[in-house]
């Protein structure tokens, strides 16, 4: 996937007077070019990450950090209220991913396999709302979910609920907000996976005696597996660290790990504790990545040793 490090096309000295001037340096340039993004990543991603890990084992002084090696921060992060929020966040991200999968799968299936010539149009329709500000879209849900809002009206109309409905500052609101926010990240890889399945493979399944449902279960879904795994990763990983949606729609009750880390850093100024929490989240994400990476491989690699 990552073609960032690919060297630029090699040019011979005959390709122009300008390049012949640079000829002695082309080898150097070709070596330097891939170093640029690597340097960028190192400076702004790996280094801060290193700080975070070092901080996680450091001692917290009042508003400061004293380097050292202690497990106190982790003990603290994994006990009481913090542990509760940590586990709650994982469950929340997992269930949010599952919900997004349940909502996104039929949508992606229709887009990929049934939309025919409206395919491109519908894919754009899925993406267009996400050209507006993330903050604005999340805030809009406040209006929709507030008492007397649109959600209340619809549920009342369908007789699924009667009277006033106040979902603001609840876990439900956070769940809705998360699923909504990450739906395209779920839908697009699934769409690509469904779209890429050749028609004749599905025809072959029907030809051999499988109806629609069995074709879906035995062929379509397994063949979309790399896409499903990618979609789950793309949704679960950012959901674990999400803090804007819980902050806006969850109020006090909607605090998730992201919010907690945020408040440790910028509120309590307890960098070591915040870092320990961040490391825990990263560890979970890392494990998830390792587990799911297996399933994101395409079938041209399956079984090839």
């Amino acid at each position: 996937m990552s073609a960032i490090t690919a060297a630029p096309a090699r040019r011979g000295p005959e390709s122009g007077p300008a390049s012949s001037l640079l000829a002695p340096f082309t080898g150097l340039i070709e070596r330097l070019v891939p170093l640029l993004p690597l340097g960028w990543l190192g400076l702004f991603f790996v280094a801060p990450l290193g700080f975070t890990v070092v901080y996680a084992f450091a001692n917290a002084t009042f508003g400061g950090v004293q380097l050292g090696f202690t497990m106190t921060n982790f003990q603290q992060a994994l006990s009481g209220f913090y542990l509760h929020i940590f586990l709650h966040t994982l469950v929340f991200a997992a269930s949010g991913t599952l919900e997004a999968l349940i909502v996104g799968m039929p949508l992606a299936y229709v887009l990929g396999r049934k939309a025919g010539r409206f395919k491109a149009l519908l894919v754009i329709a899925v993406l267009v709302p996400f050209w507006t500000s993330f903050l604005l879209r999340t805030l809009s849900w406040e209006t929709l979910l507030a008492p007397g809002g649109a959600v209340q009206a619809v549920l009342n109309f369908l007789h699924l609920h009667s009277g006033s409905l106040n979902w603001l500052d609840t876990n439900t609101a956070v769940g809705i907000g998360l699923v909504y926010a990450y739906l395209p990240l779920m839908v697009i890889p699934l769409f690509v996976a469904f779209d890429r399945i050749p028609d004749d493979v599905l025809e072959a399944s029907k030809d051999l005696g499988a109806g629609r449902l069995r074709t879906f279960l035995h062929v379509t879904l397994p063949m979309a597996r790399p896409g499903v795994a990618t979609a789950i990763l793309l949704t679960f990983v950012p959901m674990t660290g999400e803090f804007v949606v819980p902050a806006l729609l969850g109020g006090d009750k909607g605090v998730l790990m992201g919010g907690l880390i945020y408040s440790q850093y910028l509120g309590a100024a307890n960098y070591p504790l915040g870092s320990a929490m961040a490391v825990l989240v990263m560890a979970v994400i890392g494990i998830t990545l390792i587990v799911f990476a297996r399933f994101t491989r395409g079938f041209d690699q399956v079984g090839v040793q």
Partner: protein
Amino acid sequence: MSTITGTDPVSVTTIATEQTAEPSTPAVRVTHLTKRYRDVLALDDVSLEIRTGEFLSILGPSGSGKTTTMRLIGGFERPDSGTVEIAGQDVIDLPPYRRDVNTVFQSYALFPHMTVQDNVAYGLRMKGVGKKQRHARAGEMLELVQLPGASHRYPSQLSGGMKQRVALARALVNHPSVLLLDEPLGALDRKLREDMQVELRRIQTSVGITFVYVTHDQEEALSMSDRIVVMRDGRIEQIGGTGEVYDTPESLWVADFVGASSRLTGTVAAAGESVRLQTDVAPIIAGWASPGVTVGQRAVAIVRPEAIEITLASAPVEQAPNQVRATVQEILNLGAQAKVVARTPGGTELVARGPRTGLDPAVRPGATVVMSFPATAVRVYAQDAAAGAAPEEAQSA
């Protein structure tokens, strides 16, 4: 009509299930099939009977409707009008999985996430056959297609020819009454394709299943089939045995499409019992003229290359009804055979073909030769009827 052509030595026991149908019932009967894709008329009133146990090829250029015909029999598309019967049963409302027909797809269409064994056994699994029996049957099928030992590999680990064999085994595992093959050898290289042609014929004889083979390759159709259906622009141009289609093409178009031939254009001087065509080189006597060819009309005479004999103009020539003087343009060595291209003073190109050893060594480019051929090898067609307006242009899809 009740003759079952070609496949008498069928010894496989399973053939018994097909014999329960009346012997006169064709394996497949399609009547008045019409199919339109938006503006394109893909099939235009096609009727066809496929005999039980035969190897039938549907031959035509791309866009002729051959694949559409196959897809309608398989149940992948619905016709706009017309009927499809399989073993006497109307199947027009049945989806593919309810039809006793299986398909070998052009691009193999193997399931990439399953092993070869699971691919082959898929049809049995859908029927609810137990795992043990399934695997045993899959093993038998893989042996039939000469691919034992590949059971646990994945399609991505197989070569094109092997994938083709797996696709064939998978389609045969349920022992359908008809097997549809959609240009299955198209992606293989020449040598492999020729091997597979022999192979397919062997398998067809051993399983005794009716094969419907769609191809645009006339050589392939001629070498494997019992009968050939020649299609063009959504219509059937001719149906007949391989010999019939090659030796007695009913239209100029079929003569052109199936096999090579030389063309001589002229005016009809005599019609009826003996046909004579006045051309710019010589009068041509023909054994056959298409119905409706009348005296005074412009017409085309067709001669197959192997019917033409070449002698040096200086050498004594035996009397033959048709003799055309021409200058040799080039000689192509085809291995056992040689192809001689010669041109008449009027510019008409004639192509002869025969054993290389039978060719006079003095016949070389620039030599003046006499090309002789019997009247029975010449067929005359009205010029406009078939060769006229746009035979090749209206191809799409």
